């Protein structure tokens, strides 16, 4: 009898931490004591019936990780942004140009990250920030392409994203982008892998719940590129997609593939209204 009572108490104790983790917290994100970040807002109209509120992944992390993002000195992602500042001014390629030759300072990129991925009328395709960077490198600088999820590329994407920090995400899903957006939406709701999971199974149906030891977020991309404590570097959206799809035990699409570009556009549109947060800090 006594033993049964003990077991019941133990079960009760075990259940407490789990419930303390449920749902997003109500902390407020202000970076460097000045930049207020919108981390919760009403979901965009196209999510009608799916989500009522969109929430940044910041709310699903513990206080220590959250604090790292609240001050640029404490944010290890800024080390990589500094490396990109150097490569911004570094001349590369046959045209003997650097980013700075045409664009002046990185500040000229303000507002760019908030509207990417973006339909490019001339090229007739939706382009991610990474595709645009590589187009600039090959067409204008006549330099070698960077690897899609390589360090140089992700760091540069972070530097460009930083210039839009605090601005609301606002990717366009109409016009030429619409068919790509539809494709991305299909992928989002398609189950893959031996575990038979779609993006929505975790990030729409179960955000706030625990998946083993981790706290599921909505999988928003407003904080990308993101510094992850697990690999101590900046991670791009497509690298994260690849990891996520791999974890469903599926063969993944390649970073930079049309499928991931479509998925990135769709997922970004689910975060319309959240502030650009890059470089964010996550587990």
């Amino acid at each position: 009898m006594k033993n049964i009572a003990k077991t019941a108490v133990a079960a009760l104790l075990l259940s407490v931490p789990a419930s303390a983790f449920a749902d997003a917290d109500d902390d407020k994100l202000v970076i460097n004591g000045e930049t207020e970040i919108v981390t919760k807002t009403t979901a965009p109209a196209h999510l009608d019936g799916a989500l009522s509120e969109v929430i940044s992944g910041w709310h699903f992390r513990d206080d220590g990780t959250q604090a790292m993002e609240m001050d640029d000195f404490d944010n290890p992602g800024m080390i990589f942004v500094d490396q990109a500042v150097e490569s911004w001014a570094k001349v590369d390629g046959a045209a003997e140009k650097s980013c700075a030759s045409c664009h002046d300072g990185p500040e000229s990129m303000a507002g760019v990250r908030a509207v990417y991925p973006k339909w490019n009328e001339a090229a007739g395709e939706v382009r991610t920030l990474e595709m645009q960077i590589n187009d600039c490198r090959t067409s204008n600088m006549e330099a070698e392409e960077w690897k899609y999820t390589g360090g140089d590329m992700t760091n540069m994407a972070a530097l460009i994203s930083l210039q839009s920090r605090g601005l609301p995400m606002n990717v366009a899903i109409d016009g030429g982008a619409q068919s790509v957006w539809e494709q991305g939406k299909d992928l989002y709701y398609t189950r893959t892998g031996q575990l038979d999971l779609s993006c929505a199974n975790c990030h729409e149906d179960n955000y706030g719940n625990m998946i083993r030891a981790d706290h599921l977020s909505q999988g928003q991309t407003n904080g990308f590129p993101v510094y992850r404590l697990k690999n101590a570097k900046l991670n791009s959206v497509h690298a994260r997609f690849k990891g996520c799809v791999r974890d469903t035990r599926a063969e993944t699409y390649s970073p930079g593939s049309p499928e991931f570009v479509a998925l990135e556009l769709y997922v970004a549109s689910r975060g319309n209204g959240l502030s650009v947060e890059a470089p964010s800090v996550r587990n």
Partner: protein
Amino acid sequence: MAEGVKPRVKAPKSASAGEAVTIKTLISHQMESGQRKNKDGSVIPRSIINRFTCEFNGKPVIEVAMEAAISTNPYFEFEAVIPEAGDMVFTWYDDDGSVYTETKSIAVG
């Protein structure tokens, strides 16, 4: 030898006399432990920051001896009492003989 090394310090510009202020320091550095091997099986030579010091107007504030197990981009945060206005000098010593310094002036008032 070590590439991409950049010291950073965050210290207040002013403090009241006798106040304990928080100092944050970080140096980006690979901190190669000397324990790892490359593809050929030969040891990658150790290359770390082995010593960090902070002085205020010539008087020692903190001194740290660092060993090979310390992670990349070592970060130190500590409090220092500011008795008078002056310069705080931070120095990092690299295995390869390089010395990196950073100075922050703190006013009292």
